[in-house]
């Protein structure tokens, strides 16, 4: 069964675009990264899945249940972490965590305590006194203390210090090993590369690609670096030409035959042809030309 499955999910805010015709599926037990530039529609997708906003058209299911009609059956099994960690300012962190548990009619005291200790969260402090990072920790505890089957995390690590980030991902990996599906949106490509098994890229409201991290890395595109010349050969299917000292590098996704023939006539002192790293691949999806990258 799919943990998340959207079919032609579309959301317009009046005239302005949210997401268009989004077909996304996340398998149960997956560790899934959702990436895209600001305003691409990541949060719109997540908010629609969480029932905060109603889709304009299309459908979505979580664990086979309709997100609109069966929202109340879905919500108990989700742990959601919004991108803004905002809580009632006059309440203490511990009170928020207890409120969250009691709204779920669950006793999560032991798990909450364990999470707070691991994340080094002072539960006695008032929300108004907490920094963004500490409020994020409260958000993490609220999203995880009831041991949900699906975690939906909207840019979870912004504001967390590197140590806590590492601990946070350690917790997620443990949960994932126990069978929890993790769905997270992020800007930090290295995080996605390191922890996720599958990832989807969204840009301007449309899903560009959704695949395993392995396949995403093997796009058939080569990164070519040459030395000994002032300009790269004039080829089709070239992009991202850069000059770095005496080296010229570019990305190439035409046939190797054409590339090698073109390089053969140049007075090169050095040549390197390799797979671009994943971050470079993602960067291209972010940019305008991303579409024809594959």
């Amino acid at each position, binding site marked *: 069964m799919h943990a998340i499955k959207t079919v032609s999910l579309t959301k317009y805010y009046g005239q302005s675009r949210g997401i268009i015709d989004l077909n996304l599926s996340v398998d149960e037990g997956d560790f899934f990264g959702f990436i895209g530039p600001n305003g691409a529609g990541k949060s719109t997708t997540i908010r629609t899945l969480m029932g905060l*906003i109603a889709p304009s058209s299309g459908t979505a299911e979580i664990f086979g249940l309709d997100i609109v009609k069966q929202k109340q059956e879905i*919500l108990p099994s989700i742990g959601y972490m919004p991108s803004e960690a*905002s809580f*009632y300012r006059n309440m203490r962190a511990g009170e*928020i965590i207890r409120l969250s548990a009691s*709204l779920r009619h669950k006793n999560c005291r032991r798990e909450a305590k364990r999470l707070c200790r691991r994340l080094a969260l002072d539960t006695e402090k008032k929300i108004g006194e907490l920094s963004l990072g500490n409020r994020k920790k409260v958000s993490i505890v*609220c999203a995880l203390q009831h041991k949900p089957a699906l975690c939906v995390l909207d840019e979870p690590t912004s504001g967390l210090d590197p140590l806590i980030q590492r601990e946070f991902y350690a917790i997620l990996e443990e949960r994932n090993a126990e069978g929890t599906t993790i769905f997270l949106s992020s800007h930090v490509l290295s995080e996605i590369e390191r922890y996720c098994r599958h990832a989807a890229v969204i840009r301007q409201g449309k899903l560009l690609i959704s695949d395993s991290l392995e396949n995403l890395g093997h796009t058939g595109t080569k990164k070519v670096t040459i030395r000994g010349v002032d300009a790269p050969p004039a080829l089709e299917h070239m992009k991202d030409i850069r000059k770095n000292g005496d080296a010229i590098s570019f990305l190439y996704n035409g046939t190797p035959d054409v590339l090698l023939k073109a390089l053969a006539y140049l007075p090169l002192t050095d040549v390197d042809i390799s797979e671009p790293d994943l971050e470079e691949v993602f960067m291209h999806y972010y940019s305008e030309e991303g579409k024809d990258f594959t």
Partner: protein
Amino acid sequence: MILFKHELRQGRNTLLIWSGVIAFMLGICIFIYPEMKDQMGDISGVFADMGGFSAAFGMDQLNFGEFIGFFGVECGNVLGLGGAFFAALLGISALAKEEKEQTAEFLLTHPVTREKVVLHKLCAVLAQIAILNLLAICITAVSILMIKESPEAKTLAWLFLAYFILQIETASICFGISAFISQGGLGIGLGMAALFYFLNIIANLTEQAEFLKYITPFGYTEGADIIAKGSIDVKYLSVGLVLTAVGIAAAFYWYCRKDIV
């Protein structure tokens, strides 16, 4: 019950301050009555001669020489206007504050239906208004006993009931508006309460504007009318009850459908 309690806790300080101030003002007004009483006998005549001005505040029909007459005007201003402001404040912020403070995302992604959220918030608003009024009644009763006046309890009860309904109507209308806005809306709420108050004053001033009494809840809380008739004017009240229902229905209808962005 969790949500209801949570709401009451969130509003605790506001409730304490408002009910404290209103009860204190009511007490003060009652305590100054004995001193004013002797001078008041003549003043009633003066007010009666002032025409439009005293009519605006319903003072032309009241006998200030009697405690209930004095109370009808003072109470009308303190509990009526003060209570209306408090009710408007509660109503307008009840739903909108969650979006303004960005806590809606936290609250509404828990397994709680929006209907339940609206219901509990509404109950919390009504409960807070009830607490304020109970406190006002207690303070009034104690103060009256202390100055050794004995006004007719039934008339007093009608007055308090009228103010209570006024506050509920104001709160309900603002509650309805609250579902449609996602920012504070404090100005809208306080503006509504003030508008209602002034509409009644205009209605009192000229007969051509008397229809305004149907619109404003201050129409059926006019101390002078209640004391003269010994009950609340049903024709104004019924419109008020309809507006109350419309406000509440609008809140349920819209909040359960709106996008939380």
